[in-house]
């Protein structure tokens, strides 16, 4: 931990060296979470300001990236979540573990049923599907998929138990698959056999 006698100049220097390089990563997660550029920028700014204030508390040499994400996640949950929240219900009953496999196997039999589906899905479709996820699921999916954090790191960042991280990631994936599949059916990439 930094000594109390550390000058402001030294503090700035170490903060700029250790924390600022992570801004890109924080910003891309902020974009997925807030879904718009203005809020994402505000969120990142607020997170960095807070991080700077608490910089003495950060153990140099430990994981600055995870620490910054934890701060940003806190700011997001406290200040952004309620703003843009709309009531949303998630039905995970009908999403069993084999659901995607079953769908693809019946819609496009062959060696690589997923190939023809995947080839047609666009970047933007995945973005939309991710942004449709309820926030709690989206957060763990983004932290895992985009940022590559481990379950344990996500648990610390989002202040969740390991089991909750696993189950949210699991459900998040299922919901994401369902979105993508619905999209593919809607656009006629695959036939709808669900009915």
């Amino acid at each position, binding site marked *: 931990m930094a000594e109390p006698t550390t000058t402001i100049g030294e503090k700035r220097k170490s903060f*700029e060296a250790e924390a600022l390089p992570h801004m*890109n990563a924080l910003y891309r997660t902020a974009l997925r979470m807030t879904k718009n550029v203005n809020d994402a920028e505000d969120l990142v*700014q607020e997170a*960095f300001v807070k991080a700077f204030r608490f910089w003495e508390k950060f153990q140099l040499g430990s994981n600055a990236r995870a620490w910054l994400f934890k701060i940003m996640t806190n700011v997001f949950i*406290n200040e952004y979540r309620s703003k843009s929240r709309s009531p949303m219900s998630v039905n995970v*009953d009908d999403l069993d573990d084999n659901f*995607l496999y079953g769908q693809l196997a019946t819609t496009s039999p062959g060696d690589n049923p997923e190939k023809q589906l995947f080839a047609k899905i*666009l970047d933007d479709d995945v973005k939309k599907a991710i942004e449709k996820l309820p926030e709690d699921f989206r957060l763990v999916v983004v932290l895992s998929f985009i940022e590559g954090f481990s379950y344990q790191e996500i648990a610390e960042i989002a202040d969740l138990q390991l089991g909750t991280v696993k189950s949210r990631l699991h459900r998040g994936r299922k919901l994401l698959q369902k979105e993508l599949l619905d999209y593919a059916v809607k656009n006629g990439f695959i036939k709808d056999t669900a009915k």
Partner: protein
Amino acid sequence: MNCQEALDLLYEIIDKEASQIDTQEVQKHLDCCQDCLKKFQLEESLQALVKEKLKAISDIPRIDHLKAKVLSKLEQIDVTYFRPSEKATPFRIPSVALAAAASFIILIGAAFWGKGLYNHYTDYIPIERAHWAAAKNVDGFSDAQKTAAVLAGIGSNLGLNLAHDFKGLSLRGGQSEEIKGVNMAHFVYGNGQETVSVFVLPANAFTLPEDLMQTKVYLNGHCYLSHNCRGCWLVFHEEGKAMIITATTNHAFGLTEFNPASNII
């Protein structure tokens, strides 16, 4: 290892979070099970696709202006930072302390936290407290006579039966408590390690705030609302005339599957 056991580990394997032994066992299974192998491959390629697409949309072209904004904000902080009254939150605070601290901070006005700090947080602190207290002293809580009386009470008032054993946990005790101005029946289930509090109260005596509605989940024909109070996990759901609130501090415990109540009307 059978198919179900292998599939249960699917995501942990894909995420490289499974133990070495599990990974080897699953590999052995996949070597001889075409069906599972296909499922694993499908999930893996879907994962790869989603990750690749996400990376593509996550490339940020220009962030310099944001960096400049942050730096100029830091300049402003430099001037005011070293005030002796300034308090900072350490990275790791045990959630127990956090829950306790939160109520304290709210009492003193929360000035330096600004607008944030979990508005809904305060709402359920009494429920959390009751759960913590009961969980800490399960023996002090269990009184066979009291428990029986409370059970009979909710039976006649709300038409609910409560199971004595559920999901490997057994009913340790129950009593009536006034929480948030509502008279609730508070039961504790435990197995020596885990404790789950089950609060039962008349549904019309309790309104759920809007901000919980986002966490609505439908399972087994029931609608659940779950709420993480940082340190305490609460799940709300209605069962006939009753509102049931379950609380645990072990988030790994699937509360939405923990519903020991059965409607007898």
